[in-house]
């Protein structure tokens, strides 16, 4: 399926079914990041259950240096 991740269309393999799968696919499972799907924040305990669908808009953000 194709997701829109951080504004860019990204094709992901069929094994990626949940937010948890998506993070593992990009090797982000141990990174400090926050995920939003279709403008709804996905809490960490939902990662394994939140299913992703073709065309979902996913935002993966983190903390960067700032004042």
């Amino acid at each position, binding site marked *: 399926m194709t997701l829109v991740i951080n504004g860019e269309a990204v094709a992901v393999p069929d094994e990626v079914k949940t937010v948890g799968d998506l993070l593992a696919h990009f090797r982000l499972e141990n990174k400090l990041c*926050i995920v939003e799907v279709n403008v709804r924040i996905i809490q960490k305990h939902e990662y394994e259950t939140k299913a992703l669908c073709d065309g979902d808009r996913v935002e993966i953000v983190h*903390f960067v240096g700032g004042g």
Partner: protein
Amino acid sequence: MLKIGPYEFSSRLLLGTGKYPSLDVQKEAVEASGAEILTFAVRRMNIFSPEQPNFLEQLDLSKYKLLPNTAGAKTAEEAVRIARLAKASGLCDMIKVEVIGCDKTLLPDPIETLKAAEMLLEEGFIVLPYTSDDVVLAKRLEELGCHAIMPGASPIGSGQGIINPLNLSFIIEQANVPVIVDAGIGGPADAALAMELGADGVLLNTAVSGAADPVKMAKAMKLAVEAGRLGYEAGRIPKKRYASASSPTEGMSVV
């Protein structure tokens, strides 16, 4: 002690984490500053390079409180969204509300700032709004329930120091919550002056990260904030128009 909401801090210097020449310099500067509150921004992650070093991941989070900002927001709604994302990290419940209303000066939009603060307070955030040095706006933010007020000294990153000490002192005198002078600090004298005016803290970033020697400047800022605070607590002498001799005028030995 600096008290913000339920939290207490012994350092009155809050440090930004942007624009350091390297992660190593940044770590050393943070250490030298003695700061216990560090600001961060929330941005999209580059998902294709997960190995990219991230400062926050190298930080001992038991030693610091995170103060994420809503920088990049131009409306209250955008600020609220960024704040929620930051809180969902599970690492923080303080938020620096920053809603910019002018790209050239980076001055805050007072109306959107007020709206964002109100919405975030309702959601239980510890809210620290970055504001202009407007006395009435500071009052209104305090009345909403903001946990601290953060008026700017001069435009963000400008290093112009305290342009309007009168307004800042009005805000400080009337506030019942901590006033943290945020933005525009250029050198240690500016930080010390803010504290001498009675500010409860100073938040700065570029003054340290952009200095030729950020680590040394971090230490200088720490000392300046401490000196300014001590001076404020000690109570400076009033300014007089004419001289007044320090040595006794009586008992002069005359030949």
